[in-house]
């Protein structure tokens, strides 16, 4: 049925966006046990930098194709710089503190970064619509869909796939697991924890910034775009089972399809979809879809 096809494509598109937004948070939580609220700010910074660079690019009359690498470039720069700064400057010193303190520290960073955006870029919105508009559309089931959205789906699949492979199928991933469980013991058996933590945090920050940068052409980058992202990302991460890439992917798909269905069939429920799915998943699987085994206690 054509309506189902449309819902499917829309759901997939939203899921891809959600996944891009959430995957960095999953990674950082999975490895470092840090629930990073500043994730929303990384997202916003990525979006701002990308929008501004793209704006400059087109103001200079440069060819449209060059705008796509800018998206990746701004994500890498923003994630790299902010990630390094915050990890080395602040989070490193909080490593041994309890989770609540660390979450709140990232909350504080979020407040600071969000207002920094306001100070630096003001209250204006920055458009970067060209990459979205220029790619054109493709008809599916008689409805034009933006090719850019399909591109994001591909990007999400590539990123999800490679991260999953890295974490689950390589020794590096297993090293990460060893660190997650017990950093001290990992040190004692030869793992250089002090190098791996910043690396992971920076990659996570880059992914967050990529979420923002890749959204920039669809939206108008304005103050406050990071706030809602936090909760969405949280919810997806929790649904997936904290720290699981595959879980995040499935969580994003569930929410994406759920939302697309709601928009078509019961628009009033749109706001509740994500919470309803999260609650339903947690009721049946109290630790999310993909659960890590706990150490045997007794």
């Amino acid at each position, binding site marked *: 049925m054509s309506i189902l096809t449309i819902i499917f494509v829309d759901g997939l598109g939203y899921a891809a966006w959600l996944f891009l937004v959430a995957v960095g948070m999953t990674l950082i939580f999975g490895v470092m046990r840090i629930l990073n609220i500043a994730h929303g700010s990384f997202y916003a910074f990525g979006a701002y930098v990308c929008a501004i660079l793209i704006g400059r690019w087109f103001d200079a009359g440069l060819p449209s194709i060059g705008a796509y690498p800018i998206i990746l470039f701004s994500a890498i720069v923003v994630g790299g710089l902010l990630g390094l700064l915050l990890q080395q400057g602040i989070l490193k010193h909080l490593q041994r503190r309890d989770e609540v303190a660390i979450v709140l520290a990232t909350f504080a960073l979020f407040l600071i970064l969000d207002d920094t955006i306001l100070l630096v870029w003001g209250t204006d919105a920055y*458009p970067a619509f060209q990459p979205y508009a220029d790619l054109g559309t493709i008809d599916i089931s008689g409805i034009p869909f933006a090719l850019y959205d399909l591109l994001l789906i591909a990007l999400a699949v590539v990123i999800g796939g490679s991260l999953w492979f890295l974490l689950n199928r390589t020794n590096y991933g297993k090293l990460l697991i060893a660190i997650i469980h017990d950093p001290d013991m990992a040190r004692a058996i030869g793992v250089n924890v002090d190098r791996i933590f910043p690396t992971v945090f920076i990659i996570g920050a880059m992914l967050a910034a990529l979420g923002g940068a890749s959204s920039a052409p669809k*939206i108008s980058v304005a103050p406050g775009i990071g706030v809602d992202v936090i909760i969405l990302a949280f919810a997806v991460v929790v649904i997936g089972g904290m720290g699981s890439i595959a879980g995040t992917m499935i969580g994003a798909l569930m929410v994406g399809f759920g939302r697309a269905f709601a928009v078509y069939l019961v628009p009033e429920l*749109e706001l509740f979809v994500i919470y309803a799915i999260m609650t339903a998943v947690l009721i049946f699987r109290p630790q999310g879809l993909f659960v890590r085994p706990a150490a045997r206690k007794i």
Partner: protein
Amino acid sequence: EVPIQIGLVTHLSGAAAGPFGIPARNGAELVIDAINNGQMPAPYNTRGMAGRQIATTLLDEAGSPARIVTEVRSLVESVKPQAVIGFVTTGTCLAALPVLEELKTLTVLSTCGTPRVFEDNNFHYVFRTSANVTMDGVTAARYINNRMPELKNYAGINQNFAFGQDSWRDFNLAMKGLKPSLSVSLEQFPTVGAGQYGAEISALLSKRPEVTFSSFFGSDLEALVYQLVPRSLQRQTQLVFSTGETAMFRLGNRLPDGAIISGRGPYGVFARDTELNRWFRSAYEKRYGDEPTYTAYHAAQAVLGLKIAYDHAAEKKGGQLPDTEEVMADFRGLEYEAFGTKVRMSHDKGQQAVTESAIGVYRFDRETGRPGVTDVTYYSADCVNPPDGTKAVEWLSAGMPGAKCD
């Protein structure tokens, strides 16, 4: 000589700052400075307000209504302003007004368009110099019905919060009132700031309503436009953006030609061509490098109204500074020519203004590179506002009885 203290409350941060808050602040500050320097065109070219200079304290309206209540209270308790001007969003103003009333502070709402301000309360110290939101929906409905007599169905996409819901309700009721046979093909209420409208646009594309009404504003409106234009939604449905006037300069040629846009009253591109307007526009553009949009006009006319009331009251006292009650006595029922149009404080014991409204079709002039409107229609105040003493929803539901249109 002690200056007159004014508290200026508007969005300085958050999503409403760009489209509404900052223009409002700019508009108010521009006029306040001009008043202080006696640079306004005649007849408002007397220096100061009741001869006194005006000092302003800014307050950010962003955040929860609860926040604003504390902030307003502490503003009033610490600065003791003679008047508070501003308020864009309805949540914050509804929460703050009882406090301002309790503290006996003269308050001039510049925008805050909910009819609930006077319908649900009996304020003594509160004035509003712009018409309420009901006018948006009625104007759009009348205009569409005129232009599209064959219309059968329409859809709405509005933000999920009070303003979006109210806008849609008013428009809906007005449409039904004008032509009961119309049907609604789709109602969408995406979350404020959602940013992702792929599914909503697909739904509109597949349901094919003839008209799509939206009260989106700011970055949400821009995102919606960026996402719908490449997918050609504008070719399948007549788009109506009730606050489109605030976004047209930013969107430029991205806002599709043929979309129906309005602001709350004849402001911005719709403003009547008067000397006052020409002055305001050029001074605004010179100072801020931007075109003034309707909240800028709203704020400016609020300041102007207060000045007139003060000046009148002072005149009666022979130049002495009038007290709040005296100023209010002159403010009630005031009629004055403001920057965009005439403001008539004729409703709710003379504390609520009505104005005419304006609406038109967007057209981007490719030669000059400037946005513009065509097919502009003005509706007189009594045509698009409920008569004094009638509740907006009741009036709309009853089919807008007593409306005087010419």
